[in-house]
């Protein structure tokens, strides 16, 4: 089985090529099913790989498969080689499993769109690139996937490019990601320069070569993480990315691509472990992002944007997890998050579908009656997100908080505060649209439940959101055991668990979550004036939160505007005068030279012979002198 692991990459490409070549002749539905089946076949391969690895001895669960030699120049050896181990297979299962459900959902969601073929081709391309990223055994191939998912993200955010705002959002995502990718490229070069190695296993086995520069390399990688995974300071693209079709938000901007950063840290943990400074930075960025993004989610009124900020916040948790050395806890939260966040987005998409694209929760209300299935699945997703006891998010978030406590108490405290806010805003997102009285009669009267092709994926994801957490019960974590061989050499923060204390912490966070949910209920069902009063009492902080801490504006003023000015100077002075002057000057010189050449190129044989003769004389002279 392991030797057929490459099949997982082949199926999405096949689906993509089929749809590309014959898509015009097929119905939209067929296109959708072809794309979905391709992902499903990949999922089957992933399942096969999973069971093959389970059947192997624990130490042996690691297999490298050479597909072909790619670039060999001297010592630089980048191959197309894939690495099958518990970590990559876990990611593969998430990407293909959740990806498959989202593909199926999209068949219903995209019905009637005029570019269904293009949509599914991009989606399959994304799956292919994401799997390349996940299964790459070396930095260069991973970089291919890293850029590839960035490209598909750009293409899909701007999928409805007639809307200027969508096109803008696509550009913003791409440009902000470039900053992070730059860090990645530098890190790769640095690693190669110091160690001459590129494959993860080689690097992990020979860390002494890069030890002197570990902090620098790790921080550059962290920059890449903040770009792709939307962490401070590069998170600003993700909320805007919601302009893409909702299945895209679910697949790329919630479940899979944005978690690539967490995967990167886990995959290269050997480098991060060399530098405690860098690890602290990772954890700090994670927890601070989790906190700030949660505050921003509190004030949003657009359903998808609430979810977007919540995604940033949840990835913050994951980054916190890997930052404190709890790698398998971070990946565990990645998995549960993939389920419940994909679910929430798809359910939000179902609402949007029913309300003709309306996303402002202040215009909704009472939708439970009209779309019960969407309501119940959304509720399950929100409970998991909030960390309601026994839902999947509860276990995974708690494990991270527990490790954070062992690392630094303030991180735990901030994480707990974030958990409170998370519970509050996630139930706000349930209560305001689904319960209470309809606020907009017209919208309400036209609302309808989504077709089965959309609701069935919702229920399947809801199952995952409900039950996924039991894979990682404290002390009996199947998930942790499964990933253990990958992180065997990293014994930071793991272990040393005193059972009772951990249970007490669980109790505390359960209470905090329940308090958050209770407050949301009070504020939006019982005393609906409470939110406004509370805001007034906050004074200027409210303004800050309302305006998302003015970060976009700050970036505008500090980075974009100076660049703009600089660009203006380039455009008005430097480019026309200096560059164009040089170019035109060169062109003029070229023209002159060309004129000279043309005079020689008369078509007259005599001239040609003359040229040959001159050349021969010069060569003769040279060789007779030097020989």
């Amino acid at each position, binding site marked *: 089985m392991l030797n057929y692991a490459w099949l997982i990459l082949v199926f999405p490409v096949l689906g993509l090529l089929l749809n590309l070549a014959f898509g015009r002749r097929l119905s939209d539905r067929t296109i959708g099913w072809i794309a979905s089946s391709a992902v499903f076949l990949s999922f089957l391969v992933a399942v096969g790989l999973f069971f093959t690895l389970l059947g192997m001895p624990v130490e042996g669960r690691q297999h490298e498969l050479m597909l*072909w*030699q*790619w*670039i*060999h*120049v*001297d010592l630089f050896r980048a191959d197309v080689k894939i690495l099958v181990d518990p970590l990559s297979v876990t990611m593969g299962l998430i990407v293909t499993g959740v990806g498959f459900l989202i593909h199926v959902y999209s068949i219903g969601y995209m019905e009637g769109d005029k570019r269904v073929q293009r949509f599914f081709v991009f989606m399959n391309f994304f799956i292919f690139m994401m799997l390349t990223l996940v299964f790459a055994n070396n930095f260069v191939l991973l970089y291919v996937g890293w850029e590839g998912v960035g490209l598909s993200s750009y293409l899909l955010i701007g999928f409805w490019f007639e809307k200027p705002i969508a096109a803008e959002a696509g550009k913003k995502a791409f440009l902000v990601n470039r900053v992070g990718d730059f860090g990645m490229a530098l890190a790769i070069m640095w690693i190669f320069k110091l160690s001459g190695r590129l494959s993860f296993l080689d690097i992990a086995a020979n860390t002494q070569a890069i030890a002197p520069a570990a902090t620098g390399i790790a921080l550059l990688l962290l920059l890449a993480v903040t770009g792709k995974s939307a962490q401070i300071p590069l998170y600003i693209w993700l909320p805007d990315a919601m302009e893409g079709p909702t299945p895209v938000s679910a697949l790329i901007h919630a479940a899979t691509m944005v978690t690539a950063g967490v995967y990167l840290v886990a995959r290269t943990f050997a480098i991060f472990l060399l530098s405690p400074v860098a690890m602290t930075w990772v954890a700090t960025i994670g927890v601070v992002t989790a906190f700030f993004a949660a505050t921003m989610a509190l004030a949003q009124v657009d359903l998808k944007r609430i979810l977007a900020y919540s995604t940033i916040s949840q990835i913050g948790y994951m980054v916190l997890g890997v930052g404190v050395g709890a790698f398998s806890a971070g990946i565990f939260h990645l998995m549960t998050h993939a389920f419940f966040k994909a679910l929430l987005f798809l359910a939000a998409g179902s609402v949007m579908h029913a309300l003709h694209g309306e996303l402002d929760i202040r215009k909704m209300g009472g939708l439970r009656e009209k779309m019960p299935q969407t309501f119940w699945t959304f509720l399950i997703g929100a409970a998991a997100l909030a960390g309601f006891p026994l839902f999947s998010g509860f276990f995974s978030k708690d494990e991270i908080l527990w490790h954070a406590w062992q690392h630094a108490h303030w991180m735990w405290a901030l994480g707990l505060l974030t958990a409170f806010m998370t519970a509050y805003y996630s139930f706000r997102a349930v209560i305001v649209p689904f319960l209470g009285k309809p606020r907009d009669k017209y919208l309400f009267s036209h609302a309808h439940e989504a077709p089965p092709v959309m609701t069935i994926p919702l229920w399947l994801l809801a199952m995952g959101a409900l039950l996924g957490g039991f894979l990682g019960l404290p002390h009996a974590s199947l998930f942790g055991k499964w990933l253990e061989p990958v992180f065997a050499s990293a014994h930071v923060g793991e272990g040393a668990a005193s059972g009772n204390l951990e249970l007490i912490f669980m109790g505390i966070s359960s209470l905090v979550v329940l308090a958050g949910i209770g407050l949301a209920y009070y504020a939006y069902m019982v005393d609906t004036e409470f939110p406004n009063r509370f805001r007034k009492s906050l004074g200027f902080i409210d303004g800050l939160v309302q305006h998302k801490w003015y970060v976009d504006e700050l970036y505008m003023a500090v980075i974009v505007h100076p660049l703009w000015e600089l660009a203006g100077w380039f455009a008005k002075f430097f480019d026309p005068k200096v560059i164009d002057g040089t170019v035109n000057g060169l062109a003029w010189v*070229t*023209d002159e*030279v*060309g004129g000279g*050449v043309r005079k*020689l*190129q008369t*078509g007259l*044989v005599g*001239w*040609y*012979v003359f*040229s*040959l003769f*001159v*050349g*021969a004389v010069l*060569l*003769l002279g*040279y*060789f*007779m*002198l*030097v*020989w």
Partner: protein
Amino acid sequence: MTITMPSVSLMPYLPEIILLVTALLVLLVDTVWGDKRWLVWLAFLGTLVSGVAVWWLAQGPTLQLQDMLTADAYALFIDMVVLIVAAISLLLAYDWLIEHNEQQGEYVALLLFATVGMMTMGAAINVVTIFVALEILSLSLYILTGFARERLTSGEAALKYFLLGAFASAFFLYGAALLYGSSGHLDLIGIGQNLGTGGLMAGAGVALLLVGFSFKVALAPFHMWTPDVYQGAPTSVSAFMSVGAKAAGFAAFLRFFQVALAGSYAQWGPALAALAVLTMTWGNLAALRQESLKRLLAYSSIAHAGYALVGLAAGNSLGSSGLLFYLLAYAFMNLGAFGVAIMLEKPGSGDVMMSSLRGTSRQHPLLAATMAVFMFSLAGVPPLAGFFGKLYVFGAAVEANMAWLAIVGVINSALSAYYYLRVTVLMYMRDEEAGEEEVAVSKPPVLVFALVVALFFVVIVGLWPSVWMQMAQQAALIFG
């Protein structure tokens, strides 16, 4: 009187012999058979069988025909490149031959004869055999160039090519004579052991030989014939000679300098570097404003000769294998580019004007996309074949402490991007002039197939360069 035949095994020459026999068969069949299409397929089959012979020779020990010819890994690599070129060229010419020509048999046979000459160039280890091969190759090409008899330009090109080629051959022969005079040997190893440095005669011999090679591979300032000939010749012939003759010329060129002159790199290295700079710069500058696609490709092929020469001028093993890789990569992309030109040219005109490329992407999206890939590869955009060709030869220059040469090469590549991208821009971003009639492009299946093959390899060689590079390294190993 008894004549004793020397006991000579012709086995190392087997691939060439197979092609020779095929060519004779083609001429024979031509006189008795009515349906001329089979001639091309017969010749195609011949290249395949010859290819099998090459493969078979590669399995066994290295065979050699006295000190004249060899079938070492190097020769076999060149055989492979040349056979691929010949096979694709036959397919490229197929429809033109059937539609517009009456002497299909002669064309096909001449093309095979030229191929034999090219393969012999790669196999020759003696100045005499190099010269004979050069003449077999050149004479066939002179005639092929004039094959579009309905066009005056074709005849003019043939005559020019012949006159200048004869001139260059004389230089080559004179150089060979001087080398013999100063070393007492004609085989490359013998020359290498006895030539030494010092002595005007040896230096003059090397210089004159260099003139001969430079003419054949079109290095500036010995390239003047190229644009006229490529433009005048039937496009399928231009395609064939732009890659085949270049590969063969470089094959003998590289072997001569690496074997016979290995000890005097210090003397010839700088001269070749200077030639490389002059050639690529001249080729690229002249290509910038061409209005004929075939002429543009002609200047582009001059520039590429310059890039390839960088590998030779570097004088190290990466340079040699890089040059071989370059020849292979260049073969696919240039055949492809000329193939598209064949498809686009108006019947009877024998050329494609740049202005007529406008709007191609709308009328023939796949054709435009194919051409774009060839242009990107020629410009050296990763991950296509052309990129790795440049990467290897420029890398060799850096390794040989000639970073400046690599820099000049890269600057030249940037310059060349202008005219390659201009083709793409015209196809994709300019609409055809109002009132201009739609270009009627026939897409005969054989031609389409040839293009698909070329496209496939441009992509595959780019995605999977190390396989081909290993073959090239294996071939370059003979230089020790």
